[in-house]
């Protein structure tokens, strides 16, 4: 894949996530300094009357702000491709995804930027609030199984891939709706009677049977 440097819009000041990360790190450093100072000032016999304000700020107010920022940053980051790829069992999938020569569905969507970002998450989570909650709960299960080693190789999708994952984007596209090849099977695709993956695919590369590391 040719590497090009896409010009940023005039006046680019970074993404929201980058700002949250920056402010969050700054607040953590500030709070660590405040906590150390409060701890130091507490050495006296009865230092409380002059310390209450600082204690409440250092151990209460600033950590609350840090908590909000870390939660927002962590939640957004947990949907990125790099988050999915951080578990080594996902390495073959992410490697294929980013391989410009690969013809799998995942790689095709990635290299052509059919999905702009968070490509794993966009396809593997249902839409709406319920989809997000379910995806996060399933992700929690993945972390548990990964850290405790309760998984089997090769990795398989937990349930058959629903057409709604494809139709969320393609379903209302005129190119898709007017495609001659789709005309006859459109009702079956919409109802889920026929899977998109019956004709298109594979979504990911075949996994070699390998020992669990």
């Amino acid at each position: 894949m040719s590497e090009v440097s896409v010009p940023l819009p005039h006046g680019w000041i970074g993404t929201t996530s980058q700002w949250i990360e920056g402010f969050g790190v700054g607040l953590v450093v500030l709070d660590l300094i405040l906590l150390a100072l409060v701890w130091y000032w507490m050495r006296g016999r009865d230092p409380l009357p002059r310390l209450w304000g600082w204690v409440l700020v250092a151990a209460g107010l600033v950590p609350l702000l840090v908590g909000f920022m870390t939660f927002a940053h962590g939640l957004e980051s947990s949907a990125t491709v790099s988050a999915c790829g951080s578990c080594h069992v996902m390495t073959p999938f992410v490697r294929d995804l980013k391989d410009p020569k690969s013809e799998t569905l995942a790689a095709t969507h990635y290299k052509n930027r059919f999905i702009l970002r968070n490509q794993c998450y966009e396809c593997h989570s249902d839409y709406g609030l319920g989809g997000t909650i379910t995806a996060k709960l399933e992700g929690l299960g993945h972390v548990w199984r990964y850290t405790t080693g309760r998984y089997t190789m090769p990795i398989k999708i937990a349930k058959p891939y629903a057409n709604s994952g494809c139709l969320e984007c393609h379903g209302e596209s005129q190119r898709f709706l007017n495609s001659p090849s789709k005309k006859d099977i459109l009702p079956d695709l919409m109802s889920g009677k026929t899977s998109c993956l019956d004709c298109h695919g594979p979504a990911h590369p075949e996994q070699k049977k390998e020992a669990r590391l």
Partner: protein
Amino acid sequence: MTEPGQRIYLLRVAIVLALVFNVMALVVLIRPTPIAFTLFMFLAQPLMAVALFLLVIAVVAELRARQVL
């Protein structure tokens, strides 16, 4: 909980818990892996809740000692 020493002890525990919370938050902010975020959600945040609870107890004790409450 009328002795200042007891209140300072509570505050010291709260400060240590806040310190642990901050370190775990820093890990998520710098390197947000799913495991780090899970630990933050299910370990760091409950620890911070305990720290806030201890702070409230210490504040109430201080106000009672000053006969405000």
